[in-house]
Each structure stands twice: as structure tokens, then as C-alpha cells.
């Protein structure tokens, strides 16, 4: 059913807006005709380099007359002698001149030394400056990230931005990091991805599927980008900044801008670095002597005889062998080599940048896993001589070749492995079996020779064309296309498994092909004008976007030899076929009006009407909008006497954004093919009525600059409320499924404070020292949930508590009779189940932030970033007596006054341990302070270099995750949701050189 009337309400106000803007212009023109006794002043405005400055506002003070320079910097204005003319332009110091008889109309404007105006901020569809922004936008530039030896562009942001939490997926290259901008808004984990925009082109931010070790968080769709080609990353946080992205802005927006050609001269840059990564930490586990002592004691205490079945570590395995499994498996070094070559150049009207990059990275694990990435990028911008026509294009292409060894989660098994267990590998590198088979159990590394090879290519291209139709009117169109292709082959050879099995096993390969492509067309019309002191920037536009994705997966079985695996022509049969195509279409209208009164009062209105194909008929369109305002109070006369306060701004915004991140076609009542041949079955419950999640964001902020902005302080308070939650509503299995997509009458609130502080502590000719600090106090709360008690979430969430909680047993101490841990049986029914899990454990961060210092001394510069987090996390591995290793601290259980339960192998003791692990006893402080990055650069003296035709050379040394201070005894305090054995941060050292010709 078509429903065309939905468009009409928008057409009318926007039409009126167009007329209104037109009228203003008409009025301005008629006024100039009234002044007849003035002379015409015609001149040019240039910058310091003598280049013409278009768009400079010229106003006769005390009148409402004004003019603006054209693209050649020329202007003409009627003024009388004695009139005061004011020349102003963003980023430049305003010049005020009195018209005299011999008035020179050719003006040169000085670039504003004011640091805040220099920082130009990309707000997506428009730009602003740090000084005049009305929204909350955080920015990092190439300087901070380009030399970090990382694969994931987002991981470079860790610790650098307030309100932005980034956790790496795991330690392997290509794994998707989790990013939360101002906390979790949606009850669904997959409903919390921010919007990624690369050079104006939206990129599907949901990770790609994998059968490999990357399956936990998926494959990062950004891993094919070249970190050193990124010019800046902006993160849009509040309503003012995100509402123009409408239904996709609820979780914030990440804008990645790639580098462009800057100079006319042809310049070449070669950058090479290499280094290595290692696993930075180990858990202190029991050694054989104590481990066996505890195990023997367990049987003594239980009064049972160890048997080959429950005590093979005591009866079968070597009693003297003591293997440090962590060293064995995690002790390697992963070499990294990275190479970049860039050529830039152009002429007055055209600039280009051409870049190629290559990266290779090894693995810390045994085996020959490696990761290769090749990237190529071309950017070109051109403008016509009269500056009326502008063209800008960026094409980025990346190839990933990721070879991963082993089955999922093999690594975590080494922490439980008894220290006297038989060898995992034979000397020739094959899996060792004899001693394991003797014991009757499998080598825990069975599956180790399964390999995955993921080849991915990603093309992100964009073209932006604009033309100035009339003075102030600019027609702009943004066109983009992306194409992502990946092929994963997961090979399962027989030698990966127990030879006893192998006669029954078939060599297999699992093939997973994914394709995503999208196009976008965004016609826009901009209108900018200056009316006396009021500057108006307005914009209307629309978006047409289509994303197509396709997944093809199948298993090929029955290869006669290992070398044929993957060659499907040699397979006996294909099965488990899956082919899914989805189309997502998106259509929107958006508009913005920015009003700027004398660079003092700023008002920004943004709005968007969005339609998404993910919803059923009649539910597809919704409106979003925001208002942002700022007052630069230091521009007021009454502030002039406060010399130390050079800049002060109050800022506030409020608005709504939406979230349509939910599976496609969820509203259809549909059947799919069963895995078994010939059958069809319904795969989900259908609900045609669901609609958007609405996220209302409120923010207030104070921005202060002291001593000519040598010290800057930003304090923001925010409160985001996400309601109409779009979730897979959990259902009892009696309904046939475990959930149905529906809107839930629940409200999730994220609120908090963000502090950003920068300071130029010291600046002399040879030495400078800058510090910047960011600090976030986030709070997340389930504010309301009508009849939560009766709902399916009754035992998942608590009103007034964060979403990310664990409900735990109440730990009571050690029962003096049994000697085992005891948790409270709250309802006294003699059982331990959800009804007894009453302790709420907050698993969110209490606060977090980063401190960065940058020192420069002559040709040296030193930059380092400390990341800190205050939180609690889970840590177990304190089993006393049953099979499998534990942390070394449990040796205390051998003594009389132990805080651990008495040593035993009984099922009663194992249950007690399981309950205690799910009580507050399983949680500990997991706060940490980490030296996240350190970079030392040395610029070679330029004089001798110039003699050999070089413009510059730089040596650099970087380190990642060099030190971590924490009381947490697990592997990595950043990953604390399991037993404590997971980790995702490697320590990396690299050394490199950059040459400029």
C-alpha cells in the first residue's frame, strides 16, 4: 500500500523556508538602493599568503548594510567617508577600518591566532569551529593516531575521548571492537552500534560474521582502512550534533575523514615501521608440586580412592612434569611490518593525494597465523577558477588477508590445564596424542590445525559536487558507493583430531562468503547570508540510500587428502547451505538552520524525517530534530575586565534521535528452508507493529579558555533517555521461540559528566609541554519499566540499576561444618536458583579517562597517554581440589586459616564453588591505570637533508600497553566478564622512519 501523503507535511514548511530565505535576500537588496549619496568601494580581500578570501563579510557599522567577497575575494560596497567598515571571516581576526578619502580597499586579513577558531570541526553535513560549535563533538587528528601500530582505526581512540568507551574484541587483528558513545542505550547488544560515516559515506557498522576465532565480536568492517591515511576522527555525541542523522544517530556518529592533498608541489612521503607484539601478562597459577598436593589432599579429605576416571592427573600423568602452559602457548612474539607510500601534489585548482600501504603481522601463538593488509587510496579535489564549481572525491580500497589458526576458545583452556598434563604438541609440531589417549580424554587442543583464511576487500568511494547557483546558494550533491566482499574458508583436517576418531571423521571445509554493497545520493542546497550581524547558514537535503548484503555459507565434506581441503570440486558432498540476501532502503529529508549573531549568540536547528524499510507498512516514517544554542559570554562588554578568562561559552542542546538497528524483514511472517533437505519452517514470530526506538538527548556545557586559551576546560553534563525500546522480547519456549521483536515500554537513561582539560604548560623556543586530560563519570539506569515484575525481564533487570548488571547469590562465608562456601538461600526452599540471586553487581565503569602529555625539545617530541578506569570485574579460577588448575593463591587452602573452602573433589564442593563463583566472591576490583601509548619522535635536522633533496625525515619509536597498574589478578582488567582468563590488549613496540621528499 502506498502512502504518499506522508511527504506532504514536510513539503509545505520547507517550501515556506525557501521563500523566507528568498525574501530576506530581496529585502537586503532593496535597502542598498535607498542610499544614493555614497561612493562605491571595490576591492579585494586576501589572506596572509595573498590568496583571495571568498565569503568575507563586510558591514558598515551602525547600518544594516553589508556585502560579501566573491570567490576571487572581490567585493564592492556603497559607503560614505567616515563610515566604519568591519571585515570579518571565520578563523580570521576581524578588521575594522574607517573610510577615508584615500581609502585602500584591498585588505589583508590575519589568520586568527585564537586556537579555538583554528580547530575546524566536521559536523557531517556542515562544518563549524571549536569556538562556535553548539553541539558536543570530540575530535582526534592524524597527529595522535597515524603512527599507532594498530589495525583497527577505532582502537586508536581508546582513552582519548570523554564519553567514548572502546573495548577491543580480542587480541587478533581484524576483530571488531565494541564502541559505546555515552553508554548503552538499547537493551539489545546489536542495537548499540554507532553510525560510521567515512568521507560522507555511511558504512554498515555491524560486524561481519565469522566461523573463526573472530566469531566472538565478528569482523571489524573498518579493518581494511589504513590508520595512517586518516586525517581526523570526529565523534558526534549530543542531540545537536546527531539529530541531523535522525534514525541512525541514537548511538552517536563517528565521522572518519581521510587525508587529502594539501600542497601544489609534488611531495613524496615514505613511512616504514616494524615492531612486535607480545602478551603482556600472565596469571600466577599453581605449579605441579602444590597442584598435586591439593589434589591428593582432596581425596584424603573426601575419604575416597582416586580412580583413573576422576584422578588421572594423580594416577596416570607424570608427577614431576611442570609445564608453564601460558609460556608455551602465549609466549611468542608477533612481528609487525608496516609500509606507507604517499604522493601528493597538484596545482592552484586541483590537488591530489595517492597512497599505498602494506602491513604484515604475525601471531603470538604457536603456528603460522598471520595478517596482511594492503591499502590504496586516491583523493582528488578540484575547483573552478571562479570557485563556483567544486569537486571532491575519495576512493579508498583495502584488502585484508587474515590467516587464523585453531578452533574457538582454545586459549582459555590452558588456564585450567593441570601443570603436569602431557605435552600438547610433539616436537615436530603435530598434536601429541599417546599420553592423552591413555588417560581417556582428548588433547584440549584438538582442533588446533583447523585454519581459517579470511580474504576481504573493501571499496569506499565518494564524490561530492557543488556549484554556486547564485550568491549564497550552493547546490551540492554527495554520491557514494561501497562494496565489501569477504570470503572465509575454515579448513578442518583430520590431523586436528584424535587419531582414534579419524576413521570416522571426514575432512571438511566451511565456506562463508559475504558481500555488502551500498549506494547513497544526497542532493543538498545550502544558503548562507549575512544580515548585519546575523549570519545565517541553512541547508536542506535528502538522502536516498540502499544497502544490499548477502551471505552464502556451506560445508564441503569428504576430501580424500588434506591438501585438497577447500577445493570444493574434490569434496564428496556439500551441505549446510545458506544463502541470505537482504535489502535495506532508507530515505530521508533533512534541514539545518544555523544562526550566528555577532559570533556571540548561536542557535542551531536541525531536523530529519526518516523512512526505513526495516519496519512494516505504516510504521516506516518518523521525525527527529534538535535545537542547540550557545552564548559566548566573553564577547560581552561586561566581561572585558576579566583578563585571565579569555573565552567563555555556555552551551545547551535538546533533541531526539532514533534507532532502527534491528534485523531486516522482522515484520514479515515467513518460512525458511530447514537445515535438513526438503523442509521449510517458520524461523521467527512475526510482529508487524514494531517501530523506532526513540532517544532523547539533553546536554548542558560550559567551555572556558584562560590566559589566551593556554588553558581550556570543557565541562558537559548529559542525559540521554532511550524509550520505546525495540527488542527481541524474550518469550517462554512454550510459544515456540525464545523471543519476538517488539517495542517495550521501558526507558533507559544514560547520564553523566564529561570533563576535558587541555593546557599548554610550557612554551619556549626549544621546549614545550602540553597536557590534556579527559574524565567521564557515566551512569546508566533503567529508569522505568511498567510491570517489570511480571515481564520476561523480571530476573534480568532491576529498576534503578544499570543494564549491565549481574544478579548474584549473597555470599555467606564458609560453612564451618562442611568447610565449603555457602551462599544465602533467600527464599529458604533448599534450592539455589534465580530467586536467591538478589545481589546486584554493577558491571559498568564508575569513571574512566585519559591523561596525555606531549613534550617537545628541539627536534625531539615525546607523547604518552595514560588510560584509567575505575570498575569491578569478575575473577574466578579459585577452585580447590577438583581437576584442573587454579590461581596460585589457592595454595593457602593447604593451611589452617584459609579463606578458601576446604579442599575436596566431591560434587558438593564443586557445586559450592559454582555458587560462590556466582556470588560477590567472584568479583573483585578491576580498576587499572595503563600506559596506553608512548611515542618518541626525532626530526632529523633539515639543513643537511635539504642538500640531498629531502624535505624532512623523522624517526619514531612507539609502544602500546607498556605498563598496567592494577590489583586485578586476571589476564586483562579490560576484559573481566569470564573467569579472568580473557585478554584483548597486546603489548606492542615499534620503530620506524618517515622520509619526506
Amino acid at each position: 500500500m502506498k502512502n504518499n501523503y506522508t511527504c506532504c507535511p514536510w513539503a509545505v514548511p520547507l517550501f515556506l523556508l525557501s521563500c523566507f530565505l528568498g525574501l530576506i535576500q530581496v529585502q537586503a537588496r532593496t535597502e542598498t538602493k535607498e542610499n544614493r549619496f555614497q561612493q562605491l568601494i571595490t576591492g579585494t580581500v586576501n589572506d596572509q599568503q595573498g590568496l583571495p578570501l571568498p565569503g568575507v563579510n563586510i558591514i558598515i557599522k551602525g547600518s544594516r548594510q553589508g556585502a560579501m567577497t566573491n570567490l576571487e575575494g572581490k567585493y564592492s560596497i556603497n559607503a560614505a567617508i567616515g563610515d566604519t567598515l568591519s571585515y570579518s571571516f571565520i578563523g580570521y581576526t576581524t578588521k575594522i577600518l574607517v573610510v577615508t578619502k584615500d581609502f585602500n580597499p584591498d585588505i589583508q586579513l590575519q589568520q586568527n591566532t585564537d586556537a579555538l577558531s583554528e580547530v575546524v570541526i566536521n559536523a557531517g553535513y556542515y562544518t563549524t569551529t571549536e569556538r562556535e560549535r553548539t553541539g558536543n563533538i570530540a575530535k582526534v587528528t592524524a597527529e595522535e593516531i597515524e603512527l599507532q601500530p594498530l589495525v583497527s582505526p577505532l582502537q586508536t581512540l581508546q582513552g582519548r575521548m570523554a564519553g567514548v568507551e572502546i573495548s577491543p574484541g580480542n587480541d587478533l587483528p581484524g576483530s571488531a571492537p565494541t564502541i559505546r558513545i555515552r553508554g548503552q542505550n538499547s537493551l539489545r547488544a546489536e542495537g548499540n552500534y554507532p553510525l560510521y560515516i567515512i568521507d560522507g559515506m555511511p558504512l554498515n557498522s555491524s560486524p561481519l560474521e565469522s566461523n573463526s576465532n573472530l566469531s566472538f565480536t565478528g569482523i571489524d568492517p573498518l579493518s581494511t582502512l589504513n590508520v595512517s591515511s586518516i586525517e581526523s576522527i570526529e565523534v558526534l555525541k549530543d542531540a545537536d550534533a546527531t539529530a541531523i542523522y535522525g534514525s541512525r544517530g541514537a548511538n552517536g556518529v563517528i565521522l572518519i575523514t581521510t587525508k587529502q592533498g594539501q600542497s601544489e608541489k609534488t611531495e613524496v612521503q615514505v613511512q616504514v615501521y616494524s615492531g612486535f607484539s607480545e602478551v603482556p601478562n600472565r596469571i600466577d597459577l599453581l605449579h605441579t608440586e602444590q597442584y598435586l598436593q591439593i589434589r591428593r589432599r582432596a581425596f584424603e579429605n573426601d575419604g575416597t580412592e582416586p580412580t583413573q576416571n576422576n584422578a588421572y592427573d594423580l594416577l596416570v600423568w607424570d608427577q614431576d612434569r611442570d609445564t608453564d602452559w601460558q609460556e608455551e602457548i602465549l609466549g611468542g612474539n608477533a612481528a609487525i611490518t608496516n609500509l606507507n607510500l604517499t604522493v601528493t601534489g597538484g596545482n592552484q585548482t586541483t590537488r591530489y593525494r595517492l597512497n599505498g600501504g602494506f602491513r604484515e603481522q604475525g601471531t603470538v601463538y604457536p603456528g603460522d597465523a598471520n595478517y596482511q593488509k594492503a591499502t590504496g587510496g586516491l583523493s582528488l579535489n578540484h575547483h573552478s577558477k571562479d570557485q563556483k564549481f567544486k569537486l571532491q572525491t575519495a576512493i579508498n580500497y583495502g584488502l585484508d588477508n587474515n590467516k587464523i589458526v585453531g578452533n574457538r576458545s582454545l586459549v582459555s583452556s590452558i588456564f585450567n590445564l593441570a601443570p603436569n598434563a602431557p605435552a600438547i604438541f610433539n616436537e615436530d609440531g603435530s598434536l601429541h596424542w599417546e599420553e592423552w589417549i591413555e588417560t581417556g580424554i582428548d588433547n584440549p587442543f584438538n582442533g588446533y590445525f583447523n585454519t581459517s583464511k579470511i580474504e576481504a576487500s573493501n571499496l569506499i568511494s565518494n564524490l561530492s559536487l557543488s556549484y554556486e547557483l547564485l550568491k549564497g546558494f550552493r547546490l551540492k550533491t554527495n554520491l557514494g558507493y561501497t562494496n565489501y566482499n569477504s570470503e572465509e574458508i575454515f579448513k578442518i583436517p583430520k590431523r586436528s583430531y584424535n587419531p582414534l576418531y579419524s576413521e570416522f571423521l571426514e575432512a571438511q571445509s566451511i565456506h562463508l562468503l559475504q558481500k555488502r554493497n551500498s549506494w547513497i545520493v544526497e542532493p543538498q542546497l545550502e544558503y548562507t547570508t549575512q544580515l548585519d550581524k546575523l549570519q545565517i547558514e541553512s541547508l536542506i537535503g535528502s538522502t536516498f540510500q540502499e544497502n544490499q548484503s548477502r551471505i552464502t555459507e556451506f560445508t564441503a565434506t569428504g576430501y580424500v587428502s588434506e591438501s585438497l581441503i577447500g577445493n570444493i570440486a574434490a569434496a564428496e558432498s556439500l551441505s549446510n547451505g545458506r544463502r541470505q540476501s537482504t535489502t535495506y532502503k532508507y530515505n530521508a529529508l533533512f534541514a539545518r538552520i544555523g544562526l550566528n549573531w555577532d559570533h556571540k549568540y548561536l542557535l542551531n536547528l536541525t531536523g530529519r524525517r526518516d523512512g526505513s524499510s526495516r519496519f512494516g507498512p505504516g510504521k516506516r516514517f518518523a521525525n527527529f530534530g534538535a535545537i542547540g544554542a550557545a552564548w559566548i559570554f566573553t564577547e560581552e562588554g561586561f566581561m572585558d575586565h576579566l583578563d585571565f578568562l579569555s573565552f567563555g561559552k555556555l552551551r545547551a542542546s535538546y533533541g531526539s534521535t532514533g534507532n532502527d538497528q534491528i534485523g531486516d524483514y522482522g515484520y514479515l511472517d515467513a518460512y525458511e528452508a530447514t537445515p535438513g533437505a526438503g523442509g521449510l519452517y517458520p524461523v521467527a514470530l512475526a510482529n508487524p507493529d514494531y517501530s523506532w526506538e526513540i532517544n532523547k538527548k539533553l546536554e548542558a556545557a560550559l567551555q572556558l579558555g584562560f590566559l589566551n586559551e593556554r588553558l581550556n576546560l570543557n565541562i558537559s553534563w548529559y542525559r540521554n533517555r532511550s524509550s520505546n525500546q525495540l527488542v527481541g522480547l524474550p518469550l517462554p519456549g512454550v510459544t515456540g521461540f525464545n523471543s519476538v521483536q517488539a517495542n517495550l515500554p521501558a526507558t533507559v537513561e544514560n547520564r553523566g559528566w564529561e570533563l576535558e582539560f587541555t593546557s599548554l604548560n610550557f612554551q619556549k623556543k626549544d621546549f614545550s609541554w602540553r597536557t590534556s586530560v579527559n574524565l567521564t563519570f557515566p551512569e546508566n539506569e533503567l529508569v522505568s519499566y511498567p510491570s517489570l515484575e511480571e515481564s520476561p525481564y523480571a530476573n534480568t533487570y532491576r529498576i534503578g540499576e544499570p543494564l549491565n548488571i549481574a544478579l548474584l547469590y549473597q555470599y555467606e562465608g564458609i560453612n564451618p561444618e562442611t568447610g565449603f562456601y555457602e551462599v544465602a538461600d533467600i527464599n529458604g526452599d533448599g534450592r539455589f536458583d534465580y530467586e536467591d540471586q538478589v545481589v546486584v553487581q554493577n558491571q559498568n565503569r564508575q569513571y574512566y579517562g585519559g591523561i596525555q602529555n606531549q613534550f617537545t625539545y628541539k627536534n625531539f617530541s615525546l607523547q604518552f597517554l595514560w588510560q584509567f578506569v575505575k570498575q569491578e570485574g569478575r575473577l574466578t579460577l579459585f577452585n580447590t581440589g577438583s581437576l584442573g588448575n587454579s590461581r596460585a593463591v589457592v595454595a593457602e587452602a593447604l593451611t589452617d586459616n584459609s579463606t578458601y573452602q576446604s579442599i575436596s573433589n566431591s560434587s558438593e564442593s564443586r557445586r559450592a564453588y559454582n555458587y560462590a563463583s556466582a556470588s560477590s566472591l567472584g568479583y573483585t576490583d578491576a580498576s587499572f591505570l595503563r600506559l596506553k601509548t608512548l611515542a618518541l619522535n626525532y626530526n632529523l635536522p633539515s639543513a643537511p637533508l635539504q642538500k640531498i633533496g629531502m624535505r624532512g625525515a623523522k624517526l619514531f619509536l612507539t609502544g602500546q600497553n607498556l605498563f598496567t597498574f592494577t590489583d586485578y589478578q586476571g589476564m586483562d582488567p579490560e576484559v573481566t566478564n569470564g573467569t579472568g582468563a580473557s585478554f584483548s590488549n597486546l603489548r606492542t613496540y615499534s620503530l620506524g622512519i618517515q622520509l619526506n621528499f
Partner: protein
Amino acid sequence: MNLNKIFARPMIFSLCILLYACEDFVEVDPPAHKLVNQQVFNNDEMAESALQGIYNELFRIGNFSNGGASSVTALAGLSAHQITAYDQSDLEYLEFEENEILPNNPPNLSLWNSAYKIIYQVNALLEGMESSTQITASLQERIEGEARFIRAFTYFYLVNLYGEVPLALTTDYRENATLIREPAADIYDQVLLDLQLAAEVLPEEYRDGERIYVNKYVAMAFLARVHIYLENWEQAEYYSTQVINQSGIYSLLSDLDAVFLKNSTEAIWQLSPAGRGSATSNTNEGYLFISSFPVFTLTDNVPENFTTNDLRYIHWIGYDEEREAYYPFKYKDPNSSNNITEYSMVLRLAEQYFIRAEAHVKSQNISGAIADINHIRSRAGIDLINSNSNITEEELIDLLMEERQRELFTEWGHRWFDLIRFNKASTILGANNANWESTDVRFPIPEQERIKNPNLGQNPGY
């Protein structure tokens, strides 16, 4: 200057882009891999596929009916102390062995969920056909008969494992999410209704000659089972006789190694491993019991009951020297691909003889009962019961129970249900389990289900 002219162009342009932003752009067609409901039920082939989907799903991973680690065969076998988990550190199976199942036990949840998922599939199929006018009437009748048989079959196991259970007969999740548990008698009423319809409308032949599709005699065989559980002796005798009399279709095999082969003449209903949807072609029972790393082994209770000359002891029980444990050896294929040799047995003729024997005993036809039991004993190569002996009804029931255990061990929880319905669970299972409580005869309603549907009560003792 003509101002109108100047501003006309941008305004017209902006109007153009605005007016184009309309709902038809964001309309998308359903993708190829999804068939909208109406498409499925607008022709015969698709409706057949929807039925095949149910058969396939009965064999899927984690299903109550697939013979795997969380199937009725495994869990009720553990509870009846017939099998034991080889890895004794695996608490989720240990809880069944110790008859101390916690309400959050994962296999218990998996069993429950998979059963209701099958019921949903049946309900969706029935509703879809009802709303369609495109399906040939005779075909619709047959599909309905098969589907309703599967629903009845599923409810039978639910009611016997959990007692009172919710009775979902539609696909409306709003209604099903808040259902209360219905009395067992009401569940049985529905089971009988569905089975009787199936027995009426289904043809006598196996479709494609494959014993994996439900026909009239499958429905009758199961009616015999239900009636013997309900102690309706006459009906039980009637239906079992109907099946036993089809000697052209069903006969006891003298070669015990051939009983569990696919389409064996002893089979009344089997499930094909093809439903699993992978290249693995062995049954789950084969994998669980006889692979190199078996999940379960037999407890000593089972082999102790045999005399060593019993052919079933020789052919159906193996001994693992390395693990010093007996294992069920009814299925012979532990792990293979591509060539399906065995189907998972659901109903077979031997049970029908037991059903009729039991019905005979209860209607004082002692000689008839002995004759039926002797059919089984003679096939097993052991001494026959002397039909002239003065055997009491009670003794004969005990004998029947023993014989059922020897014949049907590790098949579909027969022993567990027998212990309960003959009221022997506490005496026999309590004898070697100090923790035994009389309430352990019911599995707990899964905790996760009760969290999501607070209207669901728990069984006593949990």
C-alpha cells in the same frame, strides 16, 4: 532584476527533492530466502515441504526426539539409572543420574524448548492450511493427520516427563506466553483426539516405502501405547492387535544386528539422520554410546539382568575394556558420513507385543499374555515361560517389566516411564540412591520458563 526568476530555480529544485521522498522508495520485496506465509500455503508442494520441515526438526541438534544428549532417550535413561555419564565432572548429566535435577539444568531446558518448538511448527502448519484454499483436499487431510500425530506424540512425552504442562494449540504468542499448566487428563484428551484423527485419515502404506513417515499403523501403535498408559486395557489390546496383525508389514527379526537398520521390518516409526542437515549420517545414539569417546556408558543394572545366553546380551551390549564399562550396542554406526545405514528407532513391533501382553494380564488372559511375552523371549533365544505354570498376575507384571527392560533398554526412556507407571520408582531407584524422593518422578519445569512466564508453577520437590 526579475527576482522571481532568480529564486524560482532553487525553490523548484528543493520542492522536487522533497516531493520525491516518499514511502514507495523504502518498500522492499521479501528476500529469496524467506517465503511469506501465504506463499507457503498456496500450493501442494510447499505445504509438503512445511510438513517435511517438522520431520527434519525432530532430528535437529538439541531436540527431545533426536536420540542425542538432551533427548528423552538420554535424560530419562540417566534418571532411570540405566546409563551414566562417562565424564563424571559434567554436573548437568550428573543431576539426572542423582535424581537431583536443578531447575536451571540446561539439557532439561533444551528438551522442553525443542518439544514446544515442534508443537509450534505443527500449529503453524495447521493454521496455514486452514487459511488456504489452494491445497488439494485429500493431501490436506493427510498432512493434517501426520502433523497432528507429531503434536500428540510430543505432548505425550511432555505430560509424562513434567506432569501438568501448558497446552498450546495456536501460534499466538501473546496467548501462549501466559499459559497455565493444564491437568494431565486434559493433555491426554488432546493427545487422543489428534491420534484418533491421524489413525482415521492416514493411509496404510508408508509414503515412499520409508518408515520415517507416519501412516495409519504408526498412529495405531502409538494409540496402543497411550491407552496402556491410561490403563484402557481394551483399547490398548485392540490397537496393538491391529498392528501385530499386519504381518505383511511388521515382523520380529531373528537377526538382532539388523533390528535398528533403516526400514527394518521390525520398525514402525523411525527418524532419519538426514533431518540433521549435515553430512554426518550416523544416529545420535550411535555417537553417544559407541564412539571412541562415548558420552554415556551402561550402568551395571542393565547387563546384570541378562543371562549370558540371551542373544540381546550378546548382540546389543558391548564391553569397553579400556573404560571397564558396558555400553549399549543396538546401533552399530558411531560416526559416518554420506551413507545412512541406520535410522533412529521411535516405535517398534516388540513393544506392541508387550502392550498387548500387559492388556491381556489386566483382563485376566494370562495365557495370551505369556504367549506375547514368549514371542520376544524366543527371539532372544532364552527359555520360554511355561504357559501352564500357576503364575499370578502380579508376578507376571514383574516379569513383563523385567522383559521390557531387557528388550527396550536405552530406547526412549521406556524404563523410566515403566518404573513410574508401575509405581516402582521409589523402591527400585530409591534402593541405590539415598537422595531419592518420591517427587523425583517428575522433571522440574525449567527455571528460565518460569522466569518468562510467571503463571507456570513448579513441580513439588523443586
